[in-house]
């Protein structure tokens, strides 16, 4: 083999090895770290799957914090609230500091697992920075729920930020 060819061979070999290594690692890592977004109704009626309902799979719960549902015993860090998608309510418990924009009647995405008693135990709660902003993925899913109930999305809900 002349030097040019040998160099090319090296190059191609290195690329192939690196690419396949990366492909394998990436697939493995993606599988392990992807978290799906579900709304309370999807979890309760089984559309989210048995693994989600049983608490085996970690997932993201999206929806609005139900009005009047927030409770926190005096002096305790444990916050209780309900997340709703218009169809169903899901009790959520979270121990820790809530984000600045966490508020009743605002959209929220909580990451965690289901507990046996049907409560969602969150280890991470996200509320978005802009008060009129609803994460697009939550808005999409809630839009579906509202269409089903013939809720007029355009007028009053728009003020609350559902686009």
């Amino acid at each position, binding site marked *: 083999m002349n030097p040019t060819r040998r160099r090319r061979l090296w190059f191609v070999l290195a690329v192939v090895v690196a690419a396949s290594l*990366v492909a394998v*690692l990436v697939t493995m*890592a*993606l599988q392990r770290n*992807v*978290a799906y977004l579900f709304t309370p109704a999807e979890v309760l009626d089984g559309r989210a799957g048995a693994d989600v309902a049983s608490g085996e799979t970690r997932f993201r719960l999206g929806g609005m914090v139900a009005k009047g549902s927030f409770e926190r015993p*005096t*002096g305790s860090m444990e916050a209780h609230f309900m997340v709703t998608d218009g169809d169903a309510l899901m009790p959520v418990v979270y121990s820790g500091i809530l984000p*600045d924009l966490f508020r009743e009647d605002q959209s929220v995405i909580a990451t965690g697992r289901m507990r046996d008693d049907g409560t969602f135990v969150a280890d991470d709660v996200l509320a978005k920075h802009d008060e009129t902003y609803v994460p697009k993925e939550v808005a*999409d899913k809630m839009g579906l729920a509202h269409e089903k109930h013939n809720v007029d999305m355009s007028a009053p809900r728009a003020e609350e930020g559902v686009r």
Partner: protein
Amino acid sequence: MLPEIGQAALLLALLFAVLQGVAGLAGAARGREELAAVTRPAALAQLVLVLAAYIALTLAFVMQDFSVKYVADNSNSLLPLVYRYTAVWGAHEGSLLLWALMLAVWNAAVAALSGGIPWRFRARALGVIGLVAVGFLSFMIFTSNPFERLLPAALEGHDLNPLLQDPGMIIHPPLLYIGYIGFVVPFAFAIAALLEGELDARWLRWSRPWTNVAWAFLTLGIMLGSWWAYYELGWGGWWFWDPVENASFMPWLAGTALIHSQAVTEKRGSFAGWTVLLAIAAFSLSLQGAFLVRSGVLTSVHSFAADPARGLFILVFLAAVIGGALVLYVLRAPKFPEGRAFAPVSRETLLLVNNLLLASACAMVLLGTLYPLLADALDLGKVSVGPPYFGTLFIVLMAPLVFLIPFGPLTRWQQDQASRVMAMLAPWLGLALVLGVIGYFMAPQGPLKSAAGVFAATWVCFGTLRFVWSRLRANGRAFTPEMLGMVLAHMGVAVFVAGALLVEAQNVQREIPMHPGDSDTIGRYEFRFDGVERVQGPNYLADRGLVQTFRNGKPLELLHPEKRAYASGGQVMTDAGIHGGLFADVFVALGEPLGDGAWAVRLQVKPFVRWIWAGALLMALGGFVTATDRRFRRIPKERT
């Protein structure tokens, strides 16, 4: 009146950009030097006009002209003066104007400083930049006009997003944009070289300092963003693998690879095609970053309001840039000269591995960032990719890269003996291993990560110094700014790795309820909560916590973490109290009131966290120093 002047200036700038693009490319293609000569004054005129537009918008903010929609949306009569200047880039339209201004600055700089370059090549490069400017300016004028009037004028504005009312925000976006858009220069030079068809290494020598400066600015911009997130978001994290962070990180990775491959191609002629591809990739990734941030397709803390028309425009622009560049590449790349052959043990091989790893890391981040979009399009559900995906893979890909750093500068071009290089480095590898083991046993927690951090930092630091030593000892061989820049950047990697791994290993975080008078201890540090007081700021009302910190029982600092409620819009913002130190930061953030005077408080001790930013600072410094090397400005006389 002023907004109309700004508007007119933008339209004129667009005309000059069209002129620059057409005159540059047509003049070079037809061989008409007098036509191509138009490009330089056109570039300078654009700078003057875009600057005028920028000043017009700034004045609208300073004078609080709420008849301009953008001003009414993003400022407020209570907004402090300094933030009226920075509010200009507080949202979509204005940040686009800033972006256009930065492009105009780079454009004018290339026009002014490229005197020694053959006219035809210069005309082509300026022509390409002109076309990019056409894209940016028409995007702004047709989809996101910052000068749009609001009739009747608003009596009072909304407010600048409180998160952006912060000193860090004054310089973070401009630096980031300078870096992003700076990759237009290597891109334009690469396209000019492809158009020229005569692909020698000269164009690389001219584009190397530009690439280094753009890369250094991007490094500074990312560093400041990380620093800002650290003290402003109240979580105490320094990197979140958020889609927008990723959008700035991908061009950085491609740019880092580009800096190294440009060096190989310029000096040895190898990897010429790859270098051109990387130059295209770095700029395309910058544009793609703009697309991700501006179109609202990704959910992120940075997203401004979404607008499909804008997304579509950027997508078409992106397709034109990437598609056009790649078609040109396919047509012309086979004509690339073969570089000189090299052996498996050589600096070329090491730099090849460097490029493969950086490119893989970039592809990995790209996949993770776009995967939610892909999954949505393929109806696989709404997913998010967690930080562990990025964290794990990034460490796996970067560990070999960091390990190989000391070998690079010491290994000879073309061919070398592995034993010769190993003999020089073996003692330092031994030292690093010993210190790593000591780190393992000394670490209060996370021994493996701590050991890895100590080992990697020592190894890179002393391995790099070994190169400096052997270079200084060799008589008559100059130590060039290019080498100094490389040494600084590699030392920056050592400092960064030490900071990143040590803080990840030894960070302690606690979220607890505290009553006034309560104390809590983390390691050598003690926190005493002395209650909360009400404070009136210029445009907000704050709950200010009083937290006295102690180290080894001695008072350290009285920290004032704040929870601010802004007068307009009622947004609430956390402002952390931080005692910074070379070896550890003490971090306190206020949560919510829990009743009975008790507050939820987040306490953190973050060892070596500052080293992360110090390392990035060194890397950026390295980029600037490299660019000062006079070799890049020497114009070869043999061929003109």
